[in-house]
Protein backbone atom coordinates (compact mmCIF):
# COMPACT_ATOMS: atom_id res chain seq x y z
CA UNK A 1 0.00 0.00 0.00
CA UNK A 2 1.33 3.39 -1.03
CA UNK A 3 0.43 6.36 1.09
CA UNK A 4 1.64 9.71 -0.13
CA UNK A 5 2.77 11.03 3.22
CA UNK A 6 4.68 13.91 1.64
CA UNK A 7 1.65 15.46 -0.05
CA UNK A 8 -0.48 14.72 3.01
CA UNK A 9 2.00 16.63 5.16
CA UNK A 10 2.19 19.44 2.61
CA UNK A 11 -1.60 19.78 2.53
CA UNK A 12 -1.77 19.80 6.33
CA UNK A 13 0.94 22.44 6.76
CA UNK A 14 -0.39 24.60 3.92
CA UNK A 15 -3.90 24.51 5.37
CA UNK A 16 -2.80 25.52 8.86
CA UNK A 17 -0.39 28.24 7.70
CA UNK A 18 -2.80 29.66 5.10
CA UNK A 19 -5.83 29.64 7.41
CA UNK A 20 -4.02 31.25 10.34
CA UNK A 21 -2.32 33.91 8.21
CA UNK A 22 -5.40 34.87 6.17
CA UNK A 23 -7.67 35.01 9.22
CA UNK A 24 -4.88 36.82 11.09
CA UNK A 25 -4.42 39.48 8.41
CA UNK A 26 -8.17 39.98 8.11
CA UNK A 27 -8.62 40.22 11.89
CA UNK A 28 -5.73 42.69 12.08
CA UNK A 29 -7.48 44.82 9.48
CA UNK A 30 -10.79 44.65 11.34
CA UNK A 31 -9.03 45.53 14.59
CA UNK A 32 -7.38 48.57 12.98
CA UNK A 33 -10.66 49.74 11.46
CA UNK A 34 -12.78 49.31 14.56
CA UNK A 35 -10.30 50.29 17.24
CA UNK A 36 -11.21 53.57 18.88
CA UNK A 37 -8.63 54.45 21.52
CA UNK A 38 -10.12 55.84 24.69
CA UNK A 39 -9.70 59.57 25.12
CA UNK A 40 -8.41 61.89 22.44
CA UNK A 41 -7.09 59.70 19.62
CA UNK A 42 -5.17 62.00 17.30
CA UNK A 43 -6.77 62.38 13.89
CA UNK A 44 -3.45 61.56 12.32
CA UNK A 45 -3.13 58.31 14.27
CA UNK A 46 -6.61 57.10 13.42
CA UNK A 47 -6.10 57.94 9.75
CA UNK A 48 -2.99 55.76 9.71
CA UNK A 49 -4.88 52.99 11.47
CA UNK A 50 -7.70 53.21 8.95
CA UNK A 51 -5.29 53.05 6.01
CA UNK A 52 -3.52 50.06 7.54
CA UNK A 53 -6.87 48.40 8.19
CA UNK A 54 -8.03 48.80 4.61
CA UNK A 55 -4.64 47.54 3.41
CA UNK A 56 -5.05 44.36 5.47
CA UNK A 57 -8.58 43.77 4.21
CA UNK A 58 -7.29 44.45 0.68
CA UNK A 59 -4.59 41.80 1.08
CA UNK A 60 -7.23 39.32 2.28
CA UNK A 61 -9.30 40.24 -0.80
CA UNK A 62 -6.31 39.62 -3.09
CA UNK A 63 -5.85 36.20 -1.47
CA UNK A 64 -9.51 35.46 -2.21
CA UNK A 65 -8.88 36.41 -5.85
CA UNK A 66 -5.92 34.03 -5.84
CA UNK A 67 -8.37 31.39 -4.57
CA UNK A 68 -10.59 32.00 -7.62
CA UNK A 69 -7.50 31.73 -9.80
CA UNK A 70 -6.75 28.33 -8.23
CA UNK A 71 -10.34 27.12 -8.67
CA UNK A 72 -10.78 28.05 -12.33
CA UNK A 73 -8.83 25.56 -14.46
CA UNK A 74 -8.79 27.84 -17.51
CA UNK A 75 -6.35 30.13 -15.70
CA UNK A 76 -3.57 27.58 -15.46
Amino acid at each position, binding site marked *: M*KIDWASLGLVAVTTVVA*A*VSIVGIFALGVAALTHHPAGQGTTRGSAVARAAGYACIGIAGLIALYGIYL*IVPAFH
Partner: protein
Amino acid sequence: MTTTLFVVTLVVVTALVFDFTNGFHDSANAMATAVATGALQPRLAVLIAAVLNVVGAFLSTEVAKTISGGIVNDAVVTPVMIFAGLVGAILWNLTTWLFGMPSSSSHALFGGLIGAVLVGAGTAGVNFSVIVSKIVLPALMAPLVAGLAAGLATFLVYKWMRRAEDEPAAGWFRRGQTVSGSLIALAHGTSDGQKTMGVITLVLITAGYQDSGTGPQFWVIATAGLAIGLGTYSGGWRIMRTMGKGIVEIKAPQGLAAETTSAAAILASSHMGFGLSTTQVCAGSILGSGVGRRLADVRWGTARRMVYGWLLTLPAAALTGGIAAAIAGTGTIGMVIVFAGLVAGAAAIYVISRRAPVSADNVNDARDVVINPGETASRSPEVIG
Protein backbone atom coordinates in the same frame (compact mmCIF):
# COMPACT_ATOMS: atom_id res chain seq x y z
CA MET B 1 -36.46 1.70 -27.60
CA THR B 2 -33.51 -0.67 -27.50
CA THR B 3 -32.33 -2.24 -24.27
CA THR B 4 -29.04 -0.34 -24.40
CA LEU B 5 -30.79 2.99 -24.82
CA PHE B 6 -33.12 2.09 -21.95
CA VAL B 7 -30.22 1.21 -19.66
CA VAL B 8 -28.32 4.36 -20.61
CA THR B 9 -31.40 6.54 -20.05
CA LEU B 10 -31.97 5.01 -16.62
CA VAL B 11 -28.33 5.51 -15.62
CA VAL B 12 -28.34 9.13 -16.83
CA VAL B 13 -31.54 9.92 -14.91
CA THR B 14 -30.18 8.24 -11.78
CA ALA B 15 -26.87 10.08 -12.11
CA LEU B 16 -28.72 13.40 -12.30
CA VAL B 17 -30.78 12.48 -9.23
CA PHE B 18 -27.54 11.70 -7.41
CA ASP B 19 -26.17 15.06 -8.52
CA PHE B 20 -29.25 16.74 -7.05
CA THR B 21 -28.78 14.96 -3.68
CA ASN B 22 -25.09 15.88 -3.83
CA GLY B 23 -26.13 19.52 -4.20
CA PHE B 24 -28.46 19.71 -1.23
CA HIS B 25 -26.15 17.58 0.89
CA ASP B 26 -23.24 19.93 0.35
CA SER B 27 -25.14 23.24 0.37
CA ALA B 28 -24.40 23.41 4.10
CA ASN B 29 -20.64 23.10 3.57
CA ALA B 30 -20.50 26.46 1.87
CA MET B 31 -23.26 28.35 3.61
CA ALA B 32 -24.13 26.83 7.02
CA THR B 33 -21.98 29.19 9.06
CA ALA B 34 -23.00 32.25 7.01
CA VAL B 35 -26.66 31.34 7.61
CA ALA B 36 -26.07 30.66 11.29
CA THR B 37 -24.36 34.00 11.98
CA GLY B 38 -26.87 35.94 9.89
CA ALA B 39 -24.21 37.02 7.37
CA LEU B 40 -26.66 36.00 4.66
CA GLN B 41 -30.40 35.42 4.71
CA PRO B 42 -31.01 31.67 4.26
CA ARG B 43 -32.67 31.91 0.84
CA LEU B 44 -30.09 34.37 -0.49
CA ALA B 45 -27.27 32.13 0.81
CA VAL B 46 -28.48 29.05 -1.08
CA LEU B 47 -29.18 31.15 -4.18
CA ILE B 48 -25.57 32.39 -4.22
CA ALA B 49 -24.25 28.90 -3.57
CA ALA B 50 -26.47 27.44 -6.31
CA VAL B 51 -25.41 30.00 -8.93
CA LEU B 52 -21.74 29.49 -8.07
CA ASN B 53 -22.19 25.71 -8.24
CA VAL B 54 -23.61 25.99 -11.77
CA VAL B 55 -20.86 28.43 -12.78
CA GLY B 56 -18.29 26.04 -11.32
CA ALA B 57 -19.77 23.10 -13.21
CA PHE B 58 -19.39 25.00 -16.49
CA LEU B 59 -15.86 26.15 -15.65
CA SER B 60 -14.42 22.72 -15.16
CA THR B 61 -15.49 20.13 -17.69
CA GLU B 62 -12.30 18.17 -17.85
CA VAL B 63 -13.80 14.78 -17.12
CA ALA B 64 -12.06 12.67 -14.51
CA LYS B 65 -9.97 9.90 -16.04
CA THR B 66 -11.62 7.28 -13.85
CA ILE B 67 -14.94 7.21 -12.07
CA SER B 68 -13.51 6.14 -8.79
CA GLY B 69 -9.86 7.14 -8.91
CA GLY B 70 -8.77 3.52 -8.85
CA ILE B 71 -10.90 2.35 -5.92
CA VAL B 72 -12.65 -0.11 -8.19
CA ASN B 73 -11.21 -1.61 -11.34
CA ASP B 74 -12.90 0.52 -13.99
CA ALA B 75 -12.35 -2.14 -16.66
CA VAL B 76 -14.91 -4.46 -15.02
CA VAL B 77 -17.48 -1.74 -14.29
CA THR B 78 -20.66 -2.00 -16.37
CA PRO B 79 -23.42 0.62 -16.72
CA VAL B 80 -25.64 -1.62 -14.56
CA MET B 81 -23.06 -1.53 -11.75
CA ILE B 82 -22.82 2.26 -12.03
CA PHE B 83 -26.61 2.40 -11.82
CA ALA B 84 -26.68 0.19 -8.72
CA GLY B 85 -23.87 2.19 -7.12
CA LEU B 86 -25.72 5.44 -7.74
CA VAL B 87 -28.89 4.00 -6.18
CA GLY B 88 -26.93 3.01 -3.06
CA ALA B 89 -25.37 6.47 -2.86
CA ILE B 90 -28.69 8.32 -3.32
CA LEU B 91 -30.49 6.28 -0.65
CA TRP B 92 -27.65 6.83 1.82
CA ASN B 93 -27.54 10.56 1.05
CA LEU B 94 -31.28 10.80 1.68
CA THR B 95 -31.06 8.81 4.92
CA THR B 96 -28.28 10.97 6.33
CA TRP B 97 -30.19 14.09 5.24
CA LEU B 98 -33.27 12.84 7.14
CA PHE B 99 -31.17 12.68 10.31
CA GLY B 100 -29.49 15.99 9.47
CA MET B 101 -26.10 14.32 9.31
CA PRO B 102 -23.45 15.85 7.08
CA SER B 103 -21.72 12.99 5.26
CA SER B 104 -19.54 12.81 2.19
CA SER B 105 -21.41 12.39 -1.10
CA SER B 106 -18.22 11.17 -2.75
CA HIS B 107 -17.78 8.47 -0.14
CA ALA B 108 -21.41 7.43 -0.64
CA LEU B 109 -20.79 7.15 -4.39
CA PHE B 110 -17.59 5.16 -3.85
CA GLY B 111 -19.36 2.91 -1.33
CA GLY B 112 -22.26 2.25 -3.70
CA LEU B 113 -19.84 1.43 -6.53
CA ILE B 114 -17.75 -0.84 -4.30
CA GLY B 115 -20.84 -2.80 -3.27
CA ALA B 116 -22.09 -3.06 -6.83
CA VAL B 117 -18.68 -4.20 -8.13
CA LEU B 118 -18.27 -6.72 -5.30
CA VAL B 119 -21.58 -8.32 -6.26
CA GLY B 120 -21.08 -7.99 -10.00
CA ALA B 121 -17.39 -8.81 -10.40
CA GLY B 122 -16.17 -10.20 -7.06
CA THR B 123 -13.38 -9.05 -4.76
CA ALA B 124 -10.90 -8.84 -7.65
CA GLY B 125 -12.73 -5.73 -8.91
CA VAL B 126 -12.06 -3.74 -5.75
CA ASN B 127 -8.67 -2.33 -4.73
CA PHE B 128 -8.86 -2.50 -0.95
CA SER B 129 -5.52 -0.82 -0.35
CA VAL B 130 -6.68 2.20 -2.36
CA ILE B 131 -9.75 2.38 -0.09
CA VAL B 132 -7.43 2.81 2.88
CA SER B 133 -5.12 5.34 1.24
CA LYS B 134 -7.81 7.36 -0.57
CA ILE B 135 -10.79 7.16 1.79
CA VAL B 136 -9.99 5.98 5.30
CA LEU B 137 -6.79 7.97 5.86
CA PRO B 138 -8.11 11.23 4.34
CA ALA B 139 -11.28 10.80 6.40
CA LEU B 140 -9.15 10.68 9.56
CA MET B 141 -6.92 13.55 8.47
CA ALA B 142 -9.50 16.00 7.07
CA PRO B 143 -11.27 16.85 10.34
CA LEU B 144 -7.97 16.86 12.27
CA VAL B 145 -6.17 19.23 9.91
CA ALA B 146 -9.17 21.51 9.40
CA GLY B 147 -10.02 21.42 13.10
CA LEU B 148 -6.47 22.33 14.11
CA ALA B 149 -6.25 25.19 11.60
CA ALA B 150 -9.68 26.64 12.40
CA GLY B 151 -9.08 26.22 16.13
CA LEU B 152 -5.78 28.09 15.99
CA ALA B 153 -7.22 30.84 13.80
CA THR B 154 -10.23 31.30 16.10
CA PHE B 155 -8.05 31.26 19.19
CA LEU B 156 -5.79 33.98 17.79
CA VAL B 157 -8.67 36.22 16.71
CA TYR B 158 -10.20 36.06 20.19
CA LYS B 159 -6.81 36.58 21.80
CA TRP B 160 -6.09 39.71 19.77
CA MET B 161 -9.54 41.20 19.76
CA ARG B 162 -11.51 41.49 22.94
CA ARG B 163 -14.62 42.75 21.17
CA ALA B 164 -14.47 40.58 18.06
CA GLU B 165 -18.10 39.57 18.49
CA ASP B 166 -19.42 43.11 18.86
CA GLU B 167 -20.35 45.53 16.12
CA PRO B 168 -18.83 46.90 14.01
CA ALA B 169 -16.13 44.18 14.03
CA ALA B 170 -18.71 41.39 13.70
CA GLY B 171 -20.06 43.06 10.56
CA TRP B 172 -16.65 42.86 8.93
CA PHE B 173 -16.32 39.21 9.85
CA ARG B 174 -19.75 38.50 8.38
CA ARG B 175 -18.77 40.19 5.10
CA GLY B 176 -15.58 38.11 5.04
CA GLN B 177 -17.63 34.97 5.61
CA THR B 178 -19.72 35.71 2.53
CA VAL B 179 -16.56 35.73 0.42
CA SER B 180 -15.05 32.55 1.85
CA GLY B 181 -18.40 30.72 1.67
CA SER B 182 -18.74 31.71 -1.97
CA LEU B 183 -15.26 30.35 -2.71
CA ILE B 184 -16.26 27.01 -1.20
CA ALA B 185 -19.42 26.90 -3.33
CA LEU B 186 -17.45 27.65 -6.51
CA ALA B 187 -14.84 25.01 -5.70
CA HIS B 188 -17.62 22.53 -4.98
CA GLY B 189 -19.20 23.16 -8.39
CA THR B 190 -15.95 22.54 -10.22
CA SER B 191 -15.20 19.29 -8.41
CA ASP B 192 -18.54 17.60 -7.72
CA GLY B 193 -20.41 18.83 -10.79
CA GLN B 194 -17.69 17.26 -12.86
CA LYS B 195 -18.09 13.87 -11.14
CA THR B 196 -21.61 13.36 -12.47
CA MET B 197 -20.54 14.55 -15.92
CA GLY B 198 -17.79 11.96 -15.80
CA VAL B 199 -20.20 9.17 -14.87
CA ILE B 200 -22.67 10.06 -17.63
CA THR B 201 -19.93 10.50 -20.25
CA LEU B 202 -18.39 7.18 -19.31
CA VAL B 203 -21.72 5.41 -19.67
CA LEU B 204 -22.32 7.05 -23.06
CA ILE B 205 -18.88 5.91 -24.22
CA THR B 206 -19.35 2.38 -22.88
CA ALA B 207 -22.68 2.10 -24.68
CA GLY B 208 -21.19 3.36 -27.94
CA TYR B 209 -23.11 6.65 -28.10
CA GLN B 210 -19.96 8.71 -27.86
CA ASP B 211 -16.39 8.30 -29.11
CA SER B 212 -13.84 7.22 -26.55
CA GLY B 213 -11.57 10.02 -25.37
CA THR B 214 -14.03 12.83 -26.08
CA GLY B 215 -15.23 15.31 -23.48
CA PRO B 216 -18.74 15.67 -22.09
CA GLN B 217 -21.42 16.86 -24.51
CA PHE B 218 -23.08 20.19 -23.92
CA TRP B 219 -26.40 18.73 -22.73
CA VAL B 220 -24.48 16.64 -20.18
CA ILE B 221 -22.69 19.71 -18.81
CA ALA B 222 -25.94 21.71 -18.78
CA THR B 223 -28.11 19.08 -17.07
CA ALA B 224 -25.42 18.09 -14.56
CA GLY B 225 -24.78 21.73 -13.68
CA LEU B 226 -28.49 22.39 -13.38
CA ALA B 227 -29.08 19.30 -11.21
CA ILE B 228 -26.38 20.22 -8.69
CA GLY B 229 -27.50 23.86 -8.74
CA LEU B 230 -31.14 22.98 -8.08
CA GLY B 231 -30.05 20.61 -5.33
CA THR B 232 -27.98 23.34 -3.73
CA TYR B 233 -30.82 25.85 -4.03
CA SER B 234 -33.23 23.45 -2.32
CA GLY B 235 -30.89 23.95 0.60
CA GLY B 236 -30.69 20.72 2.54
CA TRP B 237 -31.92 22.67 5.56
CA ARG B 238 -31.71 19.67 7.91
CA ILE B 239 -27.96 19.38 7.36
CA MET B 240 -27.65 23.17 7.34
CA ARG B 241 -29.08 23.26 10.88
CA THR B 242 -26.68 20.61 12.20
CA MET B 243 -23.64 22.28 10.63
CA GLY B 244 -24.61 25.82 11.60
CA LYS B 245 -26.23 25.29 14.99
CA GLY B 246 -25.87 21.67 16.06
CA ILE B 247 -22.13 21.30 16.52
CA VAL B 248 -21.39 24.65 18.10
CA GLU B 249 -23.06 28.05 18.43
CA ILE B 250 -21.13 30.01 15.81
CA LYS B 251 -20.27 33.69 16.17
CA ALA B 252 -19.13 35.76 13.19
CA PRO B 253 -15.35 35.55 13.91
CA GLN B 254 -15.60 31.77 14.26
CA GLY B 255 -17.61 31.56 11.07
CA LEU B 256 -14.93 33.48 9.21
CA ALA B 257 -12.18 31.29 10.68
CA ALA B 258 -14.06 28.08 9.85
CA GLU B 259 -14.94 29.01 6.27
CA THR B 260 -11.51 30.44 5.47
CA THR B 261 -9.93 27.25 6.80
CA SER B 262 -12.30 25.10 4.77
CA ALA B 263 -11.57 27.04 1.58
CA ALA B 264 -7.82 26.82 2.22
CA ALA B 265 -7.98 23.10 2.96
CA ILE B 266 -10.12 22.32 -0.09
CA LEU B 267 -7.87 24.30 -2.44
CA ALA B 268 -4.68 22.90 -0.91
CA SER B 269 -5.91 19.32 -1.12
CA SER B 270 -7.19 19.59 -4.68
CA HIS B 271 -3.93 21.17 -5.89
CA MET B 272 -1.47 19.05 -3.97
CA GLY B 273 -2.80 15.65 -4.84
CA PHE B 274 -4.23 14.52 -1.54
CA GLY B 275 -7.98 14.67 -1.90
CA LEU B 276 -9.92 15.49 1.24
CA SER B 277 -13.69 15.26 1.61
CA THR B 278 -15.27 18.73 1.52
CA THR B 279 -17.88 17.69 4.06
CA GLN B 280 -15.34 16.39 6.55
CA VAL B 281 -13.14 19.43 6.08
CA CYS B 282 -16.05 21.81 6.72
CA ALA B 283 -17.36 19.88 9.74
CA GLY B 284 -13.82 19.72 11.14
CA SER B 285 -13.37 23.47 10.70
CA ILE B 286 -16.63 24.24 12.47
CA LEU B 287 -15.70 21.89 15.32
CA GLY B 288 -12.25 23.48 15.53
CA SER B 289 -13.69 27.00 15.64
CA GLY B 290 -15.74 25.85 18.65
CA VAL B 291 -12.73 24.42 20.46
CA GLY B 292 -10.73 27.57 19.69
CA ARG B 293 -13.27 29.83 21.36
CA ARG B 294 -14.32 27.98 24.46
CA LEU B 295 -14.05 24.26 25.11
CA ALA B 296 -17.38 23.70 26.77
CA ASP B 297 -19.25 25.25 23.90
CA VAL B 298 -18.84 22.27 21.57
CA ARG B 299 -21.63 19.72 21.59
CA TRP B 300 -19.59 16.55 21.42
CA GLY B 301 -22.69 14.35 21.26
CA THR B 302 -23.54 15.78 17.84
CA ALA B 303 -19.92 15.54 16.75
CA ARG B 304 -19.84 11.89 17.83
CA ARG B 305 -23.01 11.05 15.90
CA MET B 306 -21.51 12.76 12.87
CA VAL B 307 -18.39 10.60 13.07
CA TYR B 308 -20.55 7.46 13.34
CA GLY B 309 -22.28 8.63 10.17
CA TRP B 310 -18.93 8.97 8.39
CA LEU B 311 -17.88 5.49 9.49
CA LEU B 312 -21.18 4.04 8.28
CA THR B 313 -21.24 5.84 4.92
CA LEU B 314 -19.01 3.46 3.00
CA PRO B 315 -20.41 0.13 4.30
CA ALA B 316 -24.05 1.29 4.23
CA ALA B 317 -23.85 2.62 0.67
CA ALA B 318 -21.92 -0.51 -0.33
CA LEU B 319 -24.61 -2.76 1.15
CA THR B 320 -27.40 -0.89 -0.64
CA GLY B 321 -25.38 -0.74 -3.85
CA GLY B 322 -24.66 -4.47 -3.59
CA ILE B 323 -28.31 -5.38 -3.13
CA ALA B 324 -29.25 -3.08 -6.00
CA ALA B 325 -26.59 -4.69 -8.19
CA ALA B 326 -27.81 -8.19 -7.37
CA ILE B 327 -31.36 -7.31 -8.43
CA ALA B 328 -30.45 -5.06 -11.37
CA GLY B 329 -28.00 -7.66 -12.67
CA THR B 330 -30.86 -10.03 -13.49
CA GLY B 331 -31.85 -7.94 -16.50
CA THR B 332 -34.06 -5.09 -17.61
CA ILE B 333 -36.90 -6.10 -15.28
CA GLY B 334 -34.42 -6.11 -12.40
CA MET B 335 -33.32 -2.57 -13.24
CA VAL B 336 -36.91 -1.40 -13.35
CA ILE B 337 -37.53 -3.00 -9.94
CA VAL B 338 -34.45 -1.28 -8.48
CA PHE B 339 -35.51 2.07 -9.93
CA ALA B 340 -39.03 1.61 -8.52
CA GLY B 341 -37.42 0.77 -5.17
CA LEU B 342 -35.35 3.95 -5.36
CA VAL B 343 -38.42 6.08 -6.05
CA ALA B 344 -40.38 4.39 -3.24
CA GLY B 345 -37.49 4.73 -0.79
CA ALA B 346 -36.95 8.39 -1.63
CA ALA B 347 -40.67 9.12 -1.30
CA ALA B 348 -40.83 7.33 2.08
CA ILE B 349 -37.87 9.31 3.42
CA TYR B 350 -39.41 12.55 2.17
CA VAL B 351 -42.75 11.75 3.84
CA ILE B 352 -40.99 10.96 7.15
CA SER B 353 -39.06 14.24 6.90
CA ARG B 354 -42.37 16.17 6.74
CA ARG B 355 -43.21 15.16 10.32
CA ALA B 356 -40.67 17.64 11.65
CA PRO B 357 -39.68 19.67 8.60
CA VAL B 358 -36.71 22.03 8.55
CA SER B 359 -36.88 24.89 6.08
CA ALA B 360 -35.33 28.27 5.32
CA ASP B 361 -37.78 29.76 7.83
CA ASN B 362 -36.89 27.66 10.86
CA VAL B 363 -33.35 26.51 10.13
CA ASN B 364 -31.87 28.69 12.90
CA ASP B 365 -34.70 28.12 15.41
CA ALA B 366 -33.38 24.94 16.98
CA ARG B 367 -30.09 23.12 17.27
CA ASP B 368 -31.20 19.55 16.64
CA VAL B 369 -32.78 17.83 13.70
CA VAL B 370 -35.43 15.41 14.92
CA ILE B 371 -37.62 12.85 13.19
CA ASN B 372 -40.75 13.37 15.28
CA PRO B 373 -42.04 16.71 16.55
CA GLY B 374 -41.63 17.09 20.29
CA GLU B 375 -38.61 14.83 20.36
CA THR B 376 -36.18 17.69 20.90
CA ALA B 377 -36.00 17.58 24.68
CA SER B 378 -35.28 13.88 24.90
CA ARG B 379 -32.79 13.78 22.08
CA SER B 380 -30.41 16.44 23.27
CA PRO B 381 -29.56 16.14 26.95
CA GLU B 382 -26.09 17.49 26.24
CA VAL B 383 -27.35 20.95 25.27
CA ILE B 384 -25.22 23.44 27.14
CA GLY B 385 -26.44 26.60 25.54
